[in-house]
């Protein structure tokens, strides 16, 4: 259910109609209705195991819902809980590979420019195996600073392993994305220091 009234005029980028999902035979959630419009930020909350990641995977098209329909207006950018990092690749190789794999190849200059806000431009040539967990998470998030990013972002636990300064920079980036008309769906156990209003979706048993 929404906590703010739906915006008029721009068509929604994401619609969920009476979506239900189960995992391992166990029902997770039922009857989820949602319309996400450009410029909106959606925070999916719930206890561990309540199906937050499953909902995000539904939105991306990685799983099919047990009931209901999911409509996504256009391409999206997905950074999951396990973001596909290969240890043997260097930071910049990983970034350019992920971008190209998503159909948005970037030049070396653009990649280095995206690594600067996450503080990894000096470490661009290091292999991912040599980085700490926090640095690896930041390497995964660097995609958000690449040009030509799609309008809808789906982020699973983006704050994991980030320090406060990086969390602030991430929140600024998400705010700027929403200002420019993009939308974000994210899960998180902690609140993000966002300036724009955030819609909330709570999953779990009543």
């Amino acid at each position: 259910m929404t906590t703010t009234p739906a915006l008029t005029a721009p068509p929604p980028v994401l619609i969920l109609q009476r979506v239900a999902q189960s995992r391992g035979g166990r029902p997770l959630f039922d009857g989820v209705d949602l319309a996400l419009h450009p410029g909106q930020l959606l925070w999916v909350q719930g206890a561990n195991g309540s199906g937050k990641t499953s909902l995000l995977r539904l939105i991306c098209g990685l799983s099919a819902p047990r009931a209901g329909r999911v409509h996504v207006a256009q391409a999206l950018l997905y950074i999951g809980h396990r973001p596909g990092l290969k240890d043997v690749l260097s930071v910049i190789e990983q970034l350019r590979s992920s971008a190209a794999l998503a159909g948005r190849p970037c030049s070396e200059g653009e990649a280095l420019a995206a690594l600067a806000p996450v503080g990894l431009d000096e470490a661009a040539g290091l292999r991912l195996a040599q980085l700490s967990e926090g640095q690896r998470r930041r390497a995964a998030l660097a995609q958000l600073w690449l040009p030509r990013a799609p309008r809808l972002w789906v982020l699973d636990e983006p704050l994991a392993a980030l320090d406060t300064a990086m969390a602030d920079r991430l929140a600024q980036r998400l705010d700027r994305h929403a200002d420019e008309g993009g939308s974000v769906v994210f899960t998180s156990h902690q609140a993000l220091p966002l300036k724009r209003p955030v819609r909330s979706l709570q999953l779990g048993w009543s």
Partner: protein
Amino acid sequence: MPRPHPIWRYASPAHFLPLTGRLLPALWALAALGIGAGLALGLFIAPSDAQQGEAYRILYLHVPAAWIAMVCYAAMAFWALWGLAWKTRLAFVLMRALAPTGALFAVLTLLTGSLWGRPTWGAWWVWDARLTSALLLALLYVGFIALTSAIDTPDDPRRGDQAGALLALVGALNLPVLYFSVSWWNTLHQGASITPRGSAIAPQMLAGLLLATLGFWAYAAAAVLTRARRLLQARVESEARWPRALGGLA
């Protein structure tokens, strides 16, 4: 909205269980009669074969067993396809129920083939096209059972169903090529061959073979349906254990 065909109601446990409950006693009776009469005719009454003496009698077991092993696999593949296409629980349950019976008859085919080969060819096994194919069919069954049991978790049969169904389908599609390649291999190396010779069959032999075949078929059907009932009941109970998601939204 058009009404679905009435036969679909048997996909639900509420109809499947009573129907099979009524069928089963008849099937078991038919099995006992068929096997009893068929084997009595075949083992005691039918005359000995002109060329093979008493040893041929094992064919009363070998021929039905081979047929059942093959048809069970075809049925498994059929229900696998049905389950993947229409996602009904019963289709996957039937697919799983067929596997152990099919495996049993595949092994029986191998054992009886070996028992027949020993007095006839002097060897416990020959690598001819049919026996080798039977061995590979037995391996296909074992692979299916191994895969599904390695994937299954106590409450979620879904992944096991899907992987097993794909495996059964792929195996079934591969079977013609497999049989062709094994036959071709056999002709390359001029191996020995076990084929029942085509000379005249005495009426008692034919009657015995038909009765035994009918009896074994009834047994196989009864065994599969009994197992299917048990599996279906287990799934229904396991689903009932989870609380239904209540709305799910705050």
